[in-house]
């Protein structure tokens, strides 16, 4: 369980909230780059951390993330015209550049200085990899750009998708930390999914349903090691990094790509799940890339033209009880991502953690919550920059390894948990 006041502290990310302030210390995904595909393309509404914003790309390819609403009469600039290096309000023609600076008020005389005093709030928007990143904190304290490996490898080696999840960000993140559910909820995927099946480690995953855990604190967050019995005298380890505030990686399987997620609050009752797959040393194959686009692995099949999953709560996730009975899926819901989403959304928009009954094996979740709470309080009371802001903390990898039973993963394979250009992932 969690006390109510701590649950509120962790789940509320709007302006001026402690957790909202914490998120505003980081570069976070705001859009996929594909959402602003060319100069002067249509603007996109963006809601992050309970702020209504508008993303656009001007005539010279500069990205902007500005207050959605015109300073004049509060009209949404989504209806605006993106033209000649600015976004022009459809109502009276006021025009803004990518910094939110008003550059033209047509009703004023040509030598008027009126518009120089009109500026919308704005945040930087920077393309790194497949993602447009923003920093929504104090612009005088902007940290260096993020250095997550999936965003830095060549574009031929990486793929990112996103989907809407209709729940608070924290219950979505906690699913990414909780390794023990894989042997149950996703058990069929280990045998069927083209991005999971065939790995040697799958048999260990399915053969030992009572994993042991080691939760190891790192500079940027945690490594959560789940060990299962492998062959004689060895353990199969699956090691999940969590970086503050909301980045997780899933341990890989065989030669399948590395993958993971960012869980980004839209508001307190919805979040975006950014999902990536990448190969550190080779291109993704056409078959791998197609499988990701089709929603296999940890991706979702979305309604065309949207980031809303085809299987969603409006259609009961296309629950298939016959497939469940036949053993094709454990829960009756198809697709690993939506198997998670369906259960996490069923908790309600913000789960009441005063009612939960945790066990010692939930120690990873308990520790992550404690680190987030401490960091939010230390930021508020002491101005302490939280872990995970430093790009050095971003250079992590998940891993799956088989080790002799007397060896700890953290001492035995520390280099395998670091992003190393040109070096293959550790995967069984």
């Amino acid at each position, binding site marked *: *369980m*969690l*006390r109510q006041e701590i649950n509120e502290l962790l789940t509320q990310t709007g302006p001026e909230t402690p957790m909202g302030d914490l998120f505003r210390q980081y570069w976070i995904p705001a859009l996929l780059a594909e959402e602003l595909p060319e100069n002067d393309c249509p603007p996109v509404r963006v809601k992050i951390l309970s702020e209504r914003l508008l993303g656009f790309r001007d005539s010279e390819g500069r990205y902007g993330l500005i207050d959605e609403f015109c300073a004049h009469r509060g009209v949404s600039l989504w209806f605006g015209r993106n033209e000649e290096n600015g976004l022009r309000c459809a109502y009276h023609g006021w025009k803004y550049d990518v910094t939110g600076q008003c550059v033209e008020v047509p009703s004023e005389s040509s030598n008027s200085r009126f518009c120089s005093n009109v500026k919308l709030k704005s945040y930087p928007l920077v393309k790194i990899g497949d993602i447009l990143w923003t920093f929504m904190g104090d612009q005088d304290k902007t940290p260096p750009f993020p250095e997550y490996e999936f965003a830095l490898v060549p574009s031929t080696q990486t793929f990112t998708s996103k989907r809407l999840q*209709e729940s608070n960000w924290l219950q979505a993140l906690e699913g990414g930390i909780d390794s023990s559910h894989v042997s149950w909820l996703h058990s069929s995927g280990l045998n069927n999914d083209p991005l999971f099946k065939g790995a040697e480690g799958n048999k260990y995953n399915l053969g030992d349903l*009572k994993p*042991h*855990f*080691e*939760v*190891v*604190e790192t500079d940027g967050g945690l490594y959560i090691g789940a060990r299962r019995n492998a062959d004689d005298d060895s353990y199969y380890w699956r090691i999940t990094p969590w970086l503050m505030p909301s980045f997780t990686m899933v341990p890989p399987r065989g030669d399948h790509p590395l993958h993971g997620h960012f869980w980004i609050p839209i508001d307190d*009752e919805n979040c975006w799940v950014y999902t990536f797959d990448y190969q550190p040393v080779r291109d993704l194959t056409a078959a791998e890339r197609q499988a990701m686009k089709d929603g296999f692995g940890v991706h979702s099949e979305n309604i065309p033209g949207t980031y809303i999953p085809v299987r969603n*709560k*409006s*259609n*009961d*996730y*296309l*629950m*298939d*009880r*016959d*497939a469940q009975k036949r053993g094709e899926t454990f829960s009756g819901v198809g697709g690993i991502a939506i198997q998670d989403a*369906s259960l996490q*959304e*069923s*908790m*309600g*928009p*913000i789960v*009441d953690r005063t*009612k939960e*009954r*945790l*066990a*010692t*094996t*939930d*120690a990873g979740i*308990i*520790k992550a*919550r*404690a680190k987030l709470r*401490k960091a939010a309080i230390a930021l508020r009371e002491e101005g302490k920059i939280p872990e995970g802001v430093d790009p050095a903390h971003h250079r992590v990898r998940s891993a799956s390894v088989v080790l002799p039973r*007397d060896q*700890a993963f*953290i*001492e035995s394979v520390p280099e395998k948990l670091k992003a190393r250009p040109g070096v293959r992932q550790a995967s069984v």
Partner: protein
Amino acid sequence: MTGPIFPGSSVKAASAAELRFRLDYPLAPSRGVRVVALDSGAELMVRKVAETPWTKAKFFVAETAISTQGMHGGPVEVVFRSLDGAVALLNDELEDVDSIIMVASSDYGSEAAATIGAACAVRGIMTAGLVHGDNTELTVSVLRPCAQVLLVPADGSDLEALLIALRA
């Protein structure tokens, strides 16, 4: 493939408005949690956390592991000392317990840890190990064989968070 049972029913069932119809009754606290300091470094941390009033947690220091073949059905016994000095026995303290949390800062209590782990495995009692202090590699090697989950490293606030989460 069958369709949804009630089209769109999850939309309503998972809404904020429906939260107020969830059954509201107090969950029982844990049946019991025992926190055992395995060495003097761990004892300091445990004593501090024990100052907070807990409903179902009891705190001990492991003194000695002794052979008591045949007693209480267990192969060996561990003598505990409660924080106010009373003597207790492991096998007595495992009655009506959900979880045992062992706290260690060295390999001093390895024999006690092994005995506690074995006794808990027989009874199906959950075990956690908290590795306190800087001597992590050695301490982890002591706790790994006898705890289902390890926190590395861990301090008093981690123990406190764990006890709250376990409704202790």
